[in-house]
């Protein structure tokens, strides 16, 4: 081996620095949020001492708790549905010989990306209002359906990006060894796709949590999510209770995912 080859190609100059800077920038606002959720004053601009005031306020505010819980529930359902549907669609449209209608499928899947939220929101308002009146059902299903739809492209693209680079030969070999295509899929293809699926599911979850405008138009009575609850406050004053409840949610989700990691590692 020559001297030159002994260097690690993985270390691109400057990349580590940029990555670390990126992490710092990403965390600055979140850390601010967490710190100031303990601020005793109304404003974030001035630190007025440590207090649990906003946590107590949030504890007593049933509306904000319901909204936070509803956000998580809708995001969970929507991201699971969207990921499953997107995975199937990715399997159907990737690594196949081109067929008629394929482009139409791509266009349809990516369509929610191209339309501003407000437009989908207004259109869904009209459609769902008709359905609500016809069926009498006005539960969370509409929100889950709407969220699932706009999460699909976000889940689809990473899964597809992953699938595209997978070598068929491994699966062909597996198909020869195992009896059924289903087993070959579960034992070989699915594990290989996993990083894409995880990335897609995370994106879908995050995108669903973020949504304001579509939710605002689709929600029925008593269906505020955390973002629409905040939107309602926007023109008046957003109370620091929001910081408190967000911090709580953040720590809960971090705890859940960490636990997931630990359990998974033990299994492996």
């Amino acid at each position: 081996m020559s001297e030159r080859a002994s260097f690690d190609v993985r270390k691109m100059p400057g990349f580590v620095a940029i990555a670390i800077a990126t992490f710092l920038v990403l965390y600055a606002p979140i850390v601010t949020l967490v710190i100031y959720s303990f601020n005793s004053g109304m404003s974030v601009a001035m630190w007025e001492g440590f207090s649990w005031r906003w946590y107590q306020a949030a504890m007593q505010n049933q509306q904000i708790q319901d909204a936070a819980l509803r956000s998580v529930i809708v995001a969970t359902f929507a991201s699971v549905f969207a990921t499953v549907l997107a995975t199937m669609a990715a399997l159907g449209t990737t690594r196949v010989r081109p067929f008629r209608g394929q482009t139409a499928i791509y266009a349809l899947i990516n369509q929610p990306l191209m339309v501003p939220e407000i437009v989908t929101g207004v259109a869904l308002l009209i459609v769902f209002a008709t359905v609500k009146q016809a069926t009498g059902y006005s539960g969370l299903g509409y929100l889950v359906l709407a969220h699932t739809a706009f999460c699909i492209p976000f889940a689809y693209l990473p899964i597809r990006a992953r699938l595209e680079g997978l070598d068929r030969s491994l699966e062909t070999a597996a198909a020869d060894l195992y009896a059924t295509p289903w087993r070959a899929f579960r034992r070989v293809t699915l594990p290989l796709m996993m990083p894409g699926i995880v990335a897609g599911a995370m994106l879908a979850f995050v995108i669903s949590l973020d949504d304001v405008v579509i939710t605002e138009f689709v929600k029925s009575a008593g269906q505020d999510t955390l973002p629409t609850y905040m939107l309602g406050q926007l023109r008046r004053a957003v109370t620091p209770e929001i910081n408190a409840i967000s911090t709580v949610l953040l720590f809960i989700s971090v705890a859940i995912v960490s636990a997931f990691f630990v359990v998974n590692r033990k299994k492996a």
Partner: protein
Amino acid sequence: MQGQGDSAAAPARAITAREGKGALVSAARRREVRVSWLLSAPALLVLLCAASGPLLIVLVYSFLTAGDYGGIVWSFSGEGWFKVFLARDIFDDTVSIADAHLTIFWRSVRLSLLTTLICIALGFPTAWFIATRSRESRNIWLFLITIPFWTNLLIRTFAIMEVIRSEGIVNSVLLAAGVIRQPIQIMYTDFAILLGMAYVYLPLMVLPLYAAMERLDFRLIEAAYDLYASRRRVLRRIVVPLVRPGLIAGSILVFIPSLGAYVTPRVLGGGKNMMLGNLIELQFGQGRNWPLGAALSLTLLLIVMVALIFYVRIVQKEAASRE
């Protein structure tokens, strides 16, 4: 969309395969296509119900008359589309190009492109960094990068505001350190919008890029390094082509939502200058002109499609030149 790019090379293979075997193959081929459709069907169904179908309503609305108090009246009118591109001066009734709308279109496209570039500049090294960690720690890094995004968009945008506002963290630290005397005005500038959008959309770049990089064979790259002269060439000649699907996916995921962004320009941009999302919202909201709002939305859709077609062409050309 971008699928057209990589599928361009495939017909050649398909044809040679077809030549040999004839009818048997074509039956198998039909089954393959059917499976493709079946697998895609559930997703398509959901999308038709809750995304594309309702969009037809928007198309119809763009050709109707605006109701006095919002909504529409069921009679045909070209007024909505007319107003997208042309403005009748409200004072002397002369017709001219709708320069306010064009300004807003252009600002949206410009800021979205810049956002995409910033996301690539920050996201590529970050995804690379994560993908080159040891197998066990990769997931932890990936997890770390998503944590900030587990709080919702509005809260994140407000948190950014708290960092950059005149009395925010950045200015306080700089003032205390004596670097500046007066707080720097970061809020309410295009820079603030860019910062906010890049922040908000960064994971949409990093995750697909990571998914593509994670499967790179670094020994292969190392070998390639022996052949080429510099790291930069390895990056350009080997790495970038290999992660191209991820890069494309990421760019689409960042660029398109940026075009229609609503919350970030409103909160960080101070609302003095609208972006397309805000203009459309104005028509559906305070402006009470739904047909114009619908026509503006479809115009946005057209811009996106033109951009994508343009993009696909370039990718196809590149793919063709590589063969």
